């Protein structure tokens, strides 16, 4: 499975389970030869290339994993896709929108369509705001719902992310919730404005292992039911395997391997991918078969 930018630029066939999806059209995200360089500060004016000529397409309703170790450029790419950084070269298109050209008003509408789920559910929620307030703000700001309508929508969203019964959670403050519950609130907030694409940056790496499966399943379910696209950024290959169907392995800002997630993980070709796979600490690594019980 070699990197083939030409193939990735052609829109991939839409074979994603979109049956139950709403009729709104989710456009493809096309990242075309994107490079990002940063100038280092100090006397020597060196540049650091964080992302180096990366191209890929996320088809409507598809889920792509972006994996790599720290410093591989994953988060820089996410920042460019969400419009908080601009690429030094190359372009990012979401349907007809050229993301790197967006300014205030356009960026605002773009943020309604592209939402982010952050790594740290402890830092991503304002500790002074209740769950209801946190989730209702985007409903009012982006969708223009009245307070009463937003209230109903919050209940609906909390139910969607598995915080049931909703009225028990709505009045709570973040410190009264566990890490997994907080991450569900963050996901509910991201869903509030009906986004077309969710960029999830290491959504489970700060959670207990016992809570991860639940969040991963929730992300997979949301994609299926709502037909939204998902970019899943992680160094956790197991999570990538569970949630996504395509994978992109980044090393020092370059794509070193890409393909179907299962295929790449079972038949890795690049040394770096193999190194990442070997670094996964599974209890079963030491033995061949799982325990009897």
């Amino acid at each position, binding site marked *: 499975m070699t990197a083939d930018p030409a193939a990735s630029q052609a829109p991939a066939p839409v074979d994603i389970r979109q049956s139950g999806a709403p009729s709104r059209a989710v456009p493809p995200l096309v990242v075309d030869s994107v490079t990002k360089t940063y100038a280092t500060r100090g006397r020597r004016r060196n540049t650091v290339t964080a992302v180096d000529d990366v191209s890929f397409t996320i088809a409507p309703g598809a889920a792509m994993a972006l994996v790599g170790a720290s410093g591989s450029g994953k988060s820089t790419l996410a920042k460019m896709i969400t419009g908080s950084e601009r690429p030094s070269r190359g372009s990012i298109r979401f349907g007809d929108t050229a993301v790197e050209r967006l300014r205030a008003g356009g960026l605002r509408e773009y943020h309604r369509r592209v939402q982010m789920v952050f790594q740290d559910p402890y830092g991503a929620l304002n500790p002074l705001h209740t769950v209801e307030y946190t989730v209702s703000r985007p409903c009012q700001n982006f969708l223009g719902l009245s307070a009463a309508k937003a209230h109903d929508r919050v209940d609906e969203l909390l139910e969607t992310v598995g915080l049931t019964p909703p009225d028990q959670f709505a009045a709570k403050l973040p410190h009264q919730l566990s890490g997994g519950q907080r991450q569900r609130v963050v996901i509910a907030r991201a869903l509030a404005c009906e986004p077309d694409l969710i960029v999830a940056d290491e959504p489970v790496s700060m959670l207990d*292992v016992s809570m*991860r499966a639940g969040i991963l*399943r929730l992300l997979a379910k949301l994609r299926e039911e709502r037909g939204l696209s998902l970019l899943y950024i992680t160094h956790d290959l*197991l999570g990538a395997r*569970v949630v996504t169907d395509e994978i992109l392995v980044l090393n020092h800002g370059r794509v070193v391997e890409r393909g179907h997630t299962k295929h790449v993980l079972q038949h890795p070709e690049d040394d770096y991918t193999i190194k990442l796979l070997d670094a996964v600490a599974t209890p*079963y690594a030491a033995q061949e078969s799982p325990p009897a019980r």
Partner: protein
Amino acid sequence: MALLEAEGVNVVYEPNRGQKIWSVRDVDLTLEQGEFVGLVGESGCGKSTLGFALTRMLRPPAHLEGGVIAFDGEDIATLEGEPLRRQRRNGFAIVLQSGMNALNPVRDIRHHFADIFRAHARGGEDLASKALSVRGAALLESVQLDPGVLDSFPHELSGGMRQRVSIALALALQPRLIVFDEPTTALDVIVQGAVIKTIKDLQAEKSFTAILISHDLGVVLDATGRVMVMYAGRIVEDQPSKELLRGPHHPYTEALLGCYADPRADEIHLGGIAGSPPDLSLPQAGCSFAPRCPLAEDICREVDPELTALGSGTVACHVRARESNAETKVRP
């Protein structure tokens, strides 16, 4: 004689306002000289608090409530001031989860080593800066860092390098017991693997006694020889790592193991554990795991099970203990 013998350790968080929290409840444990033991459990199960209690690092509002912690034959649970400091000098160190941020940002690494050597100097030691640098460089080499790191400031080092410096600092006084509290949680997978390997190699080479605290059963099983599983402030299972992997006794351990899968497998069945750990500010009736346990019976909700011997380890579970009794009766 065991290096560390703790009996009836209880730790209570007692804030000025609000309820008391029983974070560690009636923990007994024994560490033999040179053992490498893992301590696993979900967040809030008391594993770090226990690590802090064993090294006497607890700060208010947390405090020890009863219990004996015999380190090398001397009860350190009640020591204070200079005698405690002397035991520390000679005995134990801790590597913190945020150890990578525990370095002083305005001092170079050389200063960190010199500080420890000077503060804990014994009579007759050479405290000239040259001698201290030589000792610092040797320690850095033992954690696979270049001695040139001595001249670096913390911000010039990566997270993995800073954690290695923290480990080298913990080794400085040649402690006999080192508690590693989530030493790799903030690092990415590749760096995590490398740091764990360094810890493993160091432990084998210098044969200090070590406790590795982690929420990641995968990391712990890979590194340690024996694993203690904690749940809601109690140790619920204690087994050699290999046996635990082959046959976990406690349903909680079993469920934890189910949360892992090989990303290379053909089919992935990823388990989770429904529900969340109990609120430790409330008195616990029965087994704390019962509300989340697939095997729970009436007795589990009423009587808190004791740790009982089972196979090559111990387990605190009514159902498992009874099953094994029944087995031994069938086989005469």
